[in-house]
Structures are given as C-alpha cells and as structure tokens.
C-alpha cells in the first residue's frame, strides 16, 4: 500500500500539471466561493453572472455559489487561499480593493501573488452623498463648511479598508480638511444613517445611492468618468477640481488559486467574459441597478498590480 502511494505521488508529480485536467475540463459542477453572506451585493451579482454557466458554448457545467462570510471577507478568502483545490473546480469571487487592502493591513493567507484572476464582471464606483434636506449642493460647499468647522463633518461608510474607506481617505486628502469616518456594518446601514440624518455625509456604492436618489443628493463620483447609464448628471471629483481617481472603485470578478494548471486558467479566461456578456445576464444586472464592467484576465492582472502599489502607499502609517 505504502509503495503504491509513493508511486502514485511520484506519478502525479511527474505528469505535467493539467495534462489530464484541461482536455475535458470541466466534467462536473464548479463551485464559486463568495466571501459575503447570501443576499449581499456580491452574492446577488455572483448568482446572476453565473446563472447561464451550464449553457452550451460556455462552461457546459453549472456554477454553484458557496457562501463563506465573516470578518469582512477575510474568513472566506483565507479559507480559499489555503484550502481550495487547484484543479479549477473551486473558484472564488474577489472584491478589489477589499482583499488587497486587507492583505496589506492584516496577516492574511491571501495576497495578489497567490491568487490568479480570471475575469472581472462589475465595477461599482463610490459616490459622496448627503441627505436631500442638506444645505450642501456640491463637493465645494461641503469642503468650505468643513474648513470652517474642522472635525465636525461625519461621513458614513461600510467598514474599514473597503472601497468606501479608501474613497474617504482620498477625498479627505483632496479636500485638505479633517473629516470623521464612521464605519458601519455594510453599505445599507451606512446609507441609512445618511437618510436618517445621523451623519452629515456618506460614501456609498453608486448602485445603492442611485436607488435612493429620491431622498439623497449625490455630490460626486470617485471614478475617472461619469456613469452614463445610471447617473449621467453627476460630475466626477476630477471635474470639480479634486484629485480623486478610480482607486476606490469596487471591482468584482472571479479568481482561482495559484497552482491551477495554465491550460485550465486559459480556458476559464476565455469563457468567463463571454458568460458575463450574455444577454440574459446583462438584462438582470441592469434590472438590479448593478453596473457591469467586463475585463479580461490581462486587464485584471494590470489592475490588481496597480491597486497593490497604490494601496501600499496610501495605507502606510495608517
């Protein structure tokens, strides 16, 4: 028995990785770990973009969503980066900048070097919002008031070291004033505190703010260009003269563990963008107010590397 095991181990090492896997991959359902709870924005979008996976011409096998929430995503991603199989049958959804910022700030088992991006499906920029009844009508108004009342401006957002927090840090720097960040347990409660008047302003997702636009004023988008689909009238920070780029945009996509055979990665990287572009997927995403941004593997690799560099600088000494 022992001999057999040694032989088997030797054989599996000797065979080039992915030799058997790539040809008929996938021949069984593939799982996708979502590091957030069911019903959250990431889970909700992951379920939509994977619903046509079993179609002919795409994966040909269904994708099963596995939720492994906790500690702002750390639990799920730690588990994935240390325990997931590297045969392409276990994938995970990523959220940038969350997981990169966490890997810089905390002792995590994941970082951009032990994960392989496949493709990006969505991008949700952060926006600065105030209550409809607020006296502020532009970023300039808020900046002027904040200058006269240092430390009095409270800004809600979803937790620390997530897109909202990164956007907050950038906005604070660009405005050159001291603001107070009030972390919440997720985007919905953070938005609620703006609607309820508990805080003066809030950083939130474009998609959620768009839905509540009847009770909010959206002052600026933290992205490089305006959002033509949902909010064509809201200017970017850049347009208003503040140096805030797209570093806080919440990108969502699919990744696998490093060590997955190159042939499998290539196959997935070819199929996934096609799956995200499916007509039914696009329609459901639009219905849900979730902005789509499809990026191929090479583009995501570039984006990851840029964020890693930017966030390391931003979070230094924080």
């Amino acid at each position: 028995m022992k001999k057999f095991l040694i032989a088997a181990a030797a054989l599996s090492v000797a065979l080039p990785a992915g030799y058997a896997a790539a040809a008929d991959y996938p021949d069984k359902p593939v799982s996708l770990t979502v590091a957030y709870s069911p019903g959250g924005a990431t889970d909700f979008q992951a379920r939509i973009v994977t619903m046509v996976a079993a179609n002919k011409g795409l994966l040909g096998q269904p994708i099963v969503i596995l939720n492994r929430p906790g500690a702002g995503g750390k639990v799920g991603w730690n588990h994935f980066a240390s325990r997931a199989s590297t045969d392409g049958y276990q994938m995970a959804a990523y959220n940038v900048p969350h997981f990169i910022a966490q890997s810089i700030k905390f002792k995590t088992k994941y970082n951009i070097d032990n994960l392989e991006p496949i493709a990006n499906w969505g991008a949700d920029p952060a926006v600065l919002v105030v209550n409809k009844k607020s006296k502020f009508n532009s970023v300039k108004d808020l900046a002027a008031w904040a200058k006269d009342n240092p430390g009095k401006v409270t800004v809600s957002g979803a937790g620390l070291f997530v897109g909202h927090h990164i956007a907050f840090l950038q906005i604070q720097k660009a405005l050159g004033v001291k603001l107070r960040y009030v972390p919440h347990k997720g985007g919905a409660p953070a938005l609620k505190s703006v609607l309820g008047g508990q805080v003066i302003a809030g950083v939130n997702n474009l998609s959620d703010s768009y839905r509540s636009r009847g009770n909010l004023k959206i002052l600026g988008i933290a992205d490089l260009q305006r959002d033509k689909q949902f909010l064509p009238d809201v200017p970017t920070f850049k347009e208003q003269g503040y140096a805030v780029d797209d570093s806080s945009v919440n990108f969502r996509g699919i990744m696998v563990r490093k060590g997955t055979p190159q042939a499998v990665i290539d196959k997935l990287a070819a199929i996934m963008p096609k799956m995200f572009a499916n007509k039914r997927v696009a329609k459901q995403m639009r219905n849900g107010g979730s902005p789509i941004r499809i990026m191929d593997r090479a583009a995501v690799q570039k984006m990851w590397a840029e964020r890693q560099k930017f966030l390391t600088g931003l979070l230094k000494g924080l």
Partner: protein
Amino acid sequence: MEFLDHFGAVFTWSSMLILCAGTIGGLLLGATPGLSPTMAVALLIPFTFHMDPAQGLMLLGAAYTSTVAGGAVSAILLNIPGAPANIATALDGNVMARKGAGARALQICFISSAIGGVLGILVLIFLTPVLASWALKFGPSHLFWVAILGVTIIGTLDSKSVVKGLLAGCLGLWIAMIGSDSVQGVERFIFTEELEGGVHIIAALIGLFAIPQVIEMLAGGRHDPNRSVFEVRRASVWRSAMETISKVRALIIGGVVGTVVGLIPGAGGQIAGLVAYDQSRRFSKNSAKYGTGESEGVVAAESANNAMVGPSLVPLLTLSVPGSPTAAVLLGGLLIHGIFPGPDLFQKHAAVAFSFINSMLIGQILMLVFGLAIAGLAAKVIEVKPPILAGAILVLAVFGSYSVQNSMADVAIMLVLGIGMYFLAQYGFSPAPLVLGIILGPIAEHNYVQGRIIGEAQDGIAAYFLTGWLNVLLIAFVVLSLGYSIAGEIRAKRKDRADSAGAVA
C-alpha cells in the same frame, strides 16, 4: 384600501399553488434548526429568476412569513429554537410538549402567530408612510439604549436566580466579542483559525440549546427511571383557539412589542419574542407559572415575532433601506425583477407591491391551516425513544450549524459551547440569558462606538447619548425595567424570610 383591488391576482390557480408551495416549504425550512428565515429567503431567490415578478415575490413573501412561524416547531418539540426569534417560545412551549401537551402548544403557537402576523401586515399596509420616517430617526444612541433595555431583562430571564442570569449574560457578552470587531476590524480572542469569523449566533443557539439535551438523553440511557412518560394528548383546535384569544393581554403586548421592535432598523426581530415574553410575564397574574409550561408565554412570544414581519419591511418598501437581514435579502429579490423600492413603489409597481403584501396576508392564513394540520402528528415526536431522538437531534444540530456558513468551524464551535453549557446547566445556569448576551453585545458595542465618533464631532459624547426625547424615553424604560427587577427581587427575599420565619415558629 387599494390593496383590496389587488387580491384578484393572488386568487388564481397558479398563484395559490405558489403560495401553498412557499408556505409548506417555509414551514419545513423554518422547522430545521439553522435555517433561519433570512437563509430560507436567500435560498429561494434563484427560483424566482424564471417567474414573473408578482409570482416570484409571492413565493418569497409566503416563505418569509411561514419560516418565522416554522422556527417555533423545533423550539417547542425539541427545545432547539430554529432562529433567535424563537428562543422565548421554547421556554414554555417545550415544557408543555414534555408534559404531553405538544399538540396544544403548537396549535396555540400557530394561532397566535397568525394573529400577530396579520396585525403586523395591517400596520405595513396602513401606516407605512407615517412610520417610515420615524423608523429612520433611530440612530446609534437610540439603538444603544434599546440594546441596554434588552440587557436589563437578562437577569430575570429563565434563571434560578438573578445573579446566575446576569453571570450567564456576561458570558454571552464575552463570547460575542470573539472575532474581528465590526467597527474597527480589531481581532479579539482569536486563538485558532476557527474563531476568526467570531461565534455565529445560529451555531451558538443550536449548541447551547440542543447539545445539553442530547447529553442528558444519552446519559439517561434506554430505560431512564427518572424519565417521566406523559401520554401525548389530542387537542381540540377549537379549545386552543379559545385559549389563545382569552390571553388578550399577552396578544396585545406581543403585537405591540413585535410591531415596534420590527420597525426599528438594526435591532432586528431577534429580540422581539424575548422582550414580549418578559413584559407579558411582568404584567401577568400567573407570572410565577412562566417557565413551567404556561401557554401565555407561547402566545406573547409567537404573536410578537410574527407581528415583526410586516413592520420590518416598512423602511425597505418606502425608502429602499433594509431594516433587517431578511429585508436585505428581499431587496435582492425585488431588484432582480427590476423593481426598485422607494417612495414611488406603490404608484409605479402597485400590482407587484400589493401582490407581495397580500401574499403575506394570505400566507398567514395558509400557515395557520397547514400548521394546525401537522400539530397533532408533530407532537408525537416526544414519544420517540430518547436514544433515537438524541441521535436525530445531533444530526440536525451538526447539519444546521454547518449549513449556516458552510463551515466545519461552526460545527466545532457549536459542540464546544454545547458541552460547556451542559456543565453550566448542572449549576442552574440557563442558555436563554447567555444567548441574549451574544445577540445584544455586538448591537450595544457597535452603536456605542459609532455614537462616540458622531458625538465627538457634535456637542460631546454625553450630550449625544443623553439628550433628545427619544434617548430620554428609552433611558426611562431602562430605569423602569431595572427598578422592577430590583423590587421583585426584594419582594421575593422578604417572602422567603417570612416563610422561613413562619416555618421556625
């Protein structure tokens, strides 16, 4: 009265079929420990992808209402609350079941659920515009005081003594601290990888309630001489209905507490049942009988946690702000069909919105019908031999805690807490105050930290937490609740002393 015009859409063959499926499925899912209403709704959303919006939402509405009630089944029969909302139901309901009155307990539970549920949905239909802006007024300081109000009932909840109740509550507060804290992300008490995500409330709930029972059953063996065998009595639906309706006070307290707690975003329905149970006991003539199989306790708890369902959707439907985890999941279900909740929901998508609300109203009735139908049969669970029942409960406990987050870590946490609870129970400690500590700890802490940041930016922390009529009102409730507990304790001490003096003389 516009909702009446839309009842037609509910009474079609296909809609009724969906409603029945949603109700039966919801009851089964709800009765499975670990499958909370939030999870049940989340699991059903993909099924609505292929339905038309109105029918998809009917399925979700019916499932939501019936899972909340379904959670009471395992609470009563097995003493495992299906969700935190059902903890208070277990306190008296399970004692009733053990005495052979399980069928009556279930019938009373479903009838009071339906009464509370219908009340809550009527509030949703008629008072939504008025209450929506009121619900948003609750900020960190108010939620902090709501949590403290909950803490004040810990001591008197299902314990041999106030001190033991408070000790168990403190233990719960400590357990709640494990993991990364939700505001600053600081990691606390994480010694192993398993504790990284903290202790999930459902895993704790299952462990603390189910495991001590399993150990006791197995320790008792096949022929436990101490096991009292009660005959499972049949119960007449009519008499149960009359009994429920006669508990007017408990129904009113349950309905009001459930509605108010349901409206407050962030407090969650988790504590509605417990607060209603506690208040009902304080105002009851039979307060001494609570905890010994008093049906009034079941009525208060179940009417409260179903009354919460309707109002918990008020902030969601009018302002697109989900007030509870389940509402957040339902938001996803609405969005997927291109329906954006908001002030104009009832104008733009009146047909869909009202079908959804009507389906929850009809869902309550269907839940009552199906619930009463299974009550007699389900109560026979108590006749199952202890070793077999223990095995079944253990399987459910492992399955339930695993399924919450697909994690074996939760199973380990469940078992460790359960075994610890077995020993604590030997010394007169009870799991209910411990669980309440786990639920309230994060709410109090989280809102205190947020309030501190906001207070510092305004007129100071003290001013932020202590001024404003809503703060003062809540503080008054806290003081009243504390005063009542202290007075009760003193009265009990005096009576004890008088009794022992009398015995000596």
